[in-house]
């Protein structure tokens, strides 16, 4: 319709029949009037608003074109003061049109309509108003025209940007990843929990200046028992039921060490005080397997010997370890006990972290949990390694790594450590 109108207008202008075109299009029998009676009023409710808007758009288009196809003089403008009003009307029309552009196509049409090089509104104004205007109108017309052009260009640019942004936004929204879908999970392994506990213990004692040493799992009875003050018929051997090795006749007897303590003796045989070591490793006791017993388990032995170590240093070290290992809230108590190679001997207890000392099944309703055995090195042991028992003193401890891991992570069955079920292993990455 617009193009029909423009063709009409072009012809009419050439032939000087401008008024006829105006009456044809805006008169009571003009197309907008017919649209009003035949389309808008008869349209269903939901289309009526749209149609009437389109109709208004058509009217303002026709108005602009009618105006800009004439000279100012033809429009009856002969005083500079009248000029801004004319431009103001155009600007209002432009503003309302640009508001209605919702996509690139709309905007393209609008842009051509206003900025088109030959038949755009602004080109028409330049051609019909500016070039033909009298000298007294020319200046203000030029100014107004520039101002309108700047406004139109800026508004189109702004609209262009917001339409592009909206289009991009819509595309991104369509391509949006589902964040609840899993990513590609590359398999990653884990350190065994026993290893993690070893490392934790090592870390704590390294910070206290302990050096890590290792020893053989297959030992002689001398290192496993005798040199630790456990002679052959000592009742303490009952608590350490032992696996012996089947060796050719005449060989020195060997056994699977029942604790990591033999490295105390090996180390002191090789080195004079000060000694400060920890010994991680596997140990074996011939116990039938159950939730708290395995015939192979892990220990970290500790030994510190010097000329100036007393029970107080021992206590400080043990308490430091427990706090580092179980957390700063852990309380420690030392309870007298007995081991053949320490004197005094103690059991190190921590306050029960399940019941906070009130009493529960884990702590057998005592409020305390036994962590490990320790004590001051028995002077008899120094005799086996040619240390001067009157001049040196020290302490030793034997941490049960599996037991400490069980306590720390609430694992009720020690067998889980050695079944190596990946459903268990994965829980401790």
């Amino acid at each position, binding site marked *: 319709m617009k193009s029909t109108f423009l063709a009409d207008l072009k012809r009419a202008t050439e032939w000087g029949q401008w008024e006829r075109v105006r009456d044809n299009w805006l008169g009571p029998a003009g197309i907008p009037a017919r649209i009003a009676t035949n389309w808008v009023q008869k349209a269903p409710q939901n289309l009526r608003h749209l149609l009437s808007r389109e109709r208004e758009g058509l009217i303002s288009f026709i108005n602009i074109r009618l105006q800009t196809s004439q000279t100012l003089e033809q429009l009856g403008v002969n005083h500079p003061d009248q000029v801004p009003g004319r431009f103001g009307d155009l600007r209002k029309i432009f503003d309302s049109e640009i508001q209605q552009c919702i996509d690139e196509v709309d905007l393209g049409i609008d842009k051509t309509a206003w900025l088109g090089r030959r038949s755009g509104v602004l080109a028409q104004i330049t051609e019909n108003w500016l070039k033909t205007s009298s000298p007294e109108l020319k200046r203000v017309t030029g100014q107004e025209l520039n101002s309108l052009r700047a406004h139109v260009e800026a508004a189109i640019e702004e609209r262009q940007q917001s339409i592009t942004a909206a289009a991009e936004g819509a595309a991104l929204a369509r391509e949006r990843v589902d964040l609840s879908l*899993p*990513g*590609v*999970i590359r*398999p*990653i*392994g*884990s*350190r065994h929990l026993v*290893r993690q506990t070893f490392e934790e213990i*090592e870390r704590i004692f390294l*910070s*206290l*200046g*302990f*050096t*890590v*040493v290792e020893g*053989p*799992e*297959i030992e002689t009875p001398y290192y496993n028992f005798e040199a630790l003050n456990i002679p052959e*018929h000592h*009742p*303490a051997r009952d608590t350490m039921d032992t*696996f012996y*090795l*089947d*060796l050719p006749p005449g*060989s020195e007897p060997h056994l*699977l060490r029942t604790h990591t303590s033999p490295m105390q003796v090996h180390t002191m045989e090789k080195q004079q005080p*000060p000694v*400060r070591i920890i010994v991680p490793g*596997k140990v074996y006791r*011939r116990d039938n397997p159950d939730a708290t017993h395995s*015939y*192979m388990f892990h220990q970290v032995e500790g030994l*510190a010997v*010097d000329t100036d170590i*007393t*029970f*107080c*240093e021992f*206590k*400080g070290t043990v308490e*430091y370890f427990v706090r580092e290992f179980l957390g700063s809230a852990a309380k420690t*108590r*030392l*309870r007298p*006990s*007995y081991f053949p190679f320490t*004197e*005094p001997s103690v059991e190190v207890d921590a306050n029960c972290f399940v019941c906070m000392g009130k009493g529960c099944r884990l702590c*057998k309703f*005592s409020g305390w949990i036994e962590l490990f055995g320790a004590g001051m090195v028995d*002077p008899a042991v120094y005799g086996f390694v040619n240390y001067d028992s009157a001049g040196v*003193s020290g302490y030793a401890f034997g941490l049960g790594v599996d037991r400490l891991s069980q306590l720390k992570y609430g694992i009720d069955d020690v067998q889980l450590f050695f079944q*190596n*079920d*990946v459903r268990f*292993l994965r829980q401790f990455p």
Partner: protein
Amino acid sequence: MKILYDWLKEFVAIPFSPEELRERLSLVGIAVEGVSETSAGPLLDLDLTINRPDCLSHYGVAREVAALARSELRPLSVKLAEVSESAARATRVEIECPDLCGRFTARVLRGVKAQPSPDWLRQRLEALGQASINNVVDATNYVMLELGHPMHAFDMDRLAERRIVVRRARAGEKVRTLDGVERTLFPDVCVIADAARCVGIGGIMGGAETEIGFSTRNVLLESAWFDPVSIRRSSKTLGLRTEASTRFERGADPEMAEVASRHCAALIHELAGGEVLAGVVDVYPARREPLALELSRKELLRVMGANVPDGEIEAILGALGFAPRRTDQGRDTPDSPLARWQCRQPSWRQDVAREADLIEEVARHYGLDKFPSRLHPSKQPAARLPYALAEDRLRERLIGLGYHEIVSIPLVNEEEDALFRPAGVTPARVTNPLAEDASLLRSTGLVSMAHALAWNLNRGQRSLRLFEIGRAYRLQNGAPEETRIVTIGATGLARQQGVAESARDYGFADLKGDLDQIGALAGRFDWNPETHSWQHPSRSGKILLASAGLRRVGGSQDPELGRWFVTVGNTVIGAAGQLATRVAERFKLRQDIYLAEFGLDPFCNGFGLARSGRKYQPISRFPAVERDFSVILNDGTSFAAVREAIAALGIAEIISVEAVDLFRGRNIPPGNFSLLVRVTFQSPEVTLTEGQLSDFSSRIISALEQKLGATLRTT
């Protein structure tokens, strides 16, 4: 040991509830497992350490209570109404083996009436887990629980010549013990005999033939003391452990033998009537003076690091029976650093024989919580294990490659171990295994790995990657030897199906690739095609470590995966491959299993060398250019041969030779395969020209054609 709270109160005033007492006793080293209620009142269940046989009795525990409560222990005394006739005339005792039996006392009671015990006695015994038998036997048990000394009552009329001979058992001598079992003895066993035969195993269990029954009239009451080591040895060898043997092997109180006998005789008299003959027949070869002990404050401070006041020391040692006496000059100076005490070892505390033991007695009753805590500075730098860093890097890489660390028990089934055992390895067996399946120390970690894989596959876990850093064991010239090893096991999918990826099975190339990435930490792994019988014959090989004298030629793009080394020597350090079907069957492994094992020590050595030899390789500023050669080769031609043929050209600009595709069939003639070789060229000094590149290419093509009979494939 179970202790009745009310019974304790007969010997000492207890200012604590049973629960408080539990805590107090535990804190002086008498661990109480729990407190329960019985028909005989509250019961404390003690978990005694083996050094405290004195606390295997109510009186012994009462002494600890007295010391910790600083209250009085009631002295033992009993009125025994004896007739004028002396026991010595009624019986005779001889000890032929004083090394085994240090004391034997006998009391004689006549005309007793053995009958069921009264309720109060039964109640106490039953609360403590002792079955009531008759009033005479119950009296011996009751006094044992009260005073800690085991005793035995004989039916005197059944003793031949009514006399006792304590001697070694004769070879093959038999006795039927009270439990009805006939036991064959051996000469190290101390037996109680009459004039004719053995009537009991000394310190362990009486004989059935002289047992007290309801017809018994006359009783000979034995209260003796036996050597702990001999009791322990006999009890172990005979497989017979009793309340009596437990007390004697830990060390009973020889002085208590007579006291307990007197108390027991009085109780039998009270319960069973009759008359008690005068005196006791007492043969006591082991009698000795109490051991003198000394405690100095200097030593106490040296060991404990903090002072304990004089008053505390004296009160504690006094209450425990050590009779401390200050002996130093400055007796009037309280808490003098020079203070010394002379003490006497009580007969019931043979475990306290040194100054260190006295210090422990003082410390535990003074309270370990009263000693301050201190940290002491280290005088030496701390060090990790020598190979800790290599192990860290290895573990970290394995984990990054998706392997979970396992820890297994290295005791395994002998036959299963044999499936993996290298030729010439003597395995280390255990003489006393708990089970056949755990009778041998593994000679490789592969057997444990196979079990770990099977465990998981049987539980629906189908894709697995595991590793273990452990030890293997063997006998070398009859002596045990331990080797540190790394074992790897994998099966199932290498890649899981997902929205962004398709599934792919784990294959030999995965195993080899992962091992090569590990090998790069220690130099490089090389491979040779030898296989062991556990390995699949076509998908396996041996791993060699090329590490010594490692030097990169030409500079590789990826320093860790550098493919050009000059190596001085390759050592076989392990093996890798698919598990042979026959072996997989044995473990019921129903999907393809890949295993590898190599020595940790050579790896760690290689790690150290590689690390110390590692130098920055300048990165060329000039572009690298790739050229692909698609060649048809005869089956059996290895990629190594291709690489060597190219390397032999000595073109310094070649920085890598890679195989990027391989296939058979389609339009490739049978007996041949197609290989796509990608060669990368780069110069550190110039941009390579087209002319140079086409010269390199044609030399490569003619080398492959001439050396390997390759045909260039045109596409």
